[in-house]
């Protein structure tokens, strides 16, 4: 695998595609949030994530050095070329699942970006410093909402438990180290994702306890998204919406 790909480019795509795909999913709430305040908060989160995407994919485009721009990477790649984890591409379903997914992701991003601040790659470190401030707030918000809804009414608890049960098998993919991760760890660009699993578990289990939610059994993890092996059937549909403008009017500018 490493003979044919540039590991740094792959690493950067994984970071940028995670924030791009979740950012787009989050933006789908714009105008239809369950309350005006939550609608604006979700739009803010989406904008933060798209902003982080720009930093990651700017650098990815430079590292690739094949003349593709940041926008080309975001809007002209097909589903098989995306490197996001599968959890981030499944549909929002409802507000509960959207916030549960955000929480599971934020609980990873915070320790991950914290360690990336010490990356030997200055650009990676700079992006991590900037993104971490946003991720810390996202975590505060998603954690608070998960706890409030879990410890809310019977209906809200039921929905949060349903969301957790659905998302749990998707939450492990990010910790499955592979060749790209080993290559990045070797040159100290990034730690191994598996190293932060225990911190992540502590964060999520702590919130589940306060939220009266039961952590599902089992370690099975749907995977293949970040490795580029397979995506869910949902990604193609999402990209069709997200990319329609650049596909229909190639090179169109704002």
């Amino acid at each position, binding site marked *: 695998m490493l003979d044919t790909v540039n590991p740094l480019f792959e690493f950067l795509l994984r970071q940028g595609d995670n924030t791009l795909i979740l950012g787009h999913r989050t933006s789908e709430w714009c105008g239809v949030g369950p*309350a*005006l*305040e*939550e609608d*604006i*908060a979700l739009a*803010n989160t989406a904008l933060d994530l798209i902003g982080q995407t720009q930093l990651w994919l700017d650098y990815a485009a430079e590292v690739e050095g094949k003349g593709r721009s940041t926008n080309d990477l975001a809007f002209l790649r097909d589903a098989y070329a995306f490197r996001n984890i599968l959890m981030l591409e499944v549909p929002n379903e409802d507000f509960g699942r959207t916030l549960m997914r955000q929480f599971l992701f934020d609980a990873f991003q915070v320790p991950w970006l914290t360690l990336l601040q010490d990356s030997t790659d200055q650009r990676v470190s700079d992006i991590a410093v900037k993104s971490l401030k946003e991720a810390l*707030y996202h975590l*505060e*918000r998603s954690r*608070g909402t998960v706890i*409030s809804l879990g410890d809310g009414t019977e209906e809200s608890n039921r929905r949060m438990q349903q969301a957790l049960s659905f998302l749990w098998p998707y939450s492990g993919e990010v910790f499955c180290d592979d060749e790209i991760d080993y290559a990045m760890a070797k040159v100290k660009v990034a730690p191994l994702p598996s190293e932060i699993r225990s911190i992540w578990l502590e964060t999520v289990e702590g919130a589940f306890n306060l939220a009266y939610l039961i952590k599902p059994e089992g370690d099975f993890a749907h995977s293949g998204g970040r490795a580029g092996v397979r995506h869910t059937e949902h990604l193609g549909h999402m990209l069709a919406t997200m990319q329609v403008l650049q596909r229909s009017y190639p090179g169109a500018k704002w």
Partner: protein
Amino acid sequence: MSEKNEWPLWEVFIRGHHGMSHRHVGSLHASDAEHAIRNARDVYTRRNEGVSIWVVEATNVSASSPSEKGPMFDPSRDKVYRHPTFYDLPDEAGKM
């Protein structure tokens, strides 16, 4: 949604970057105080308006009655001598 299920209303106060005091900027709905602060952050400080947020549940604000506006405020309208505008300030005193 019935009235019963609505989140309570909160009044939001923001202190700006150069402000000395918190100013009322508006109101919002939230389930509790922490939620209200997060919502205030997202609704009222997204254009970098502030460095500090206060929230007060609207039911805890006591207000003067609009119908008593006359007796409450009119008597002070013709007492210009209460404004300290009749003094000559020495330059050394600086801006007051």
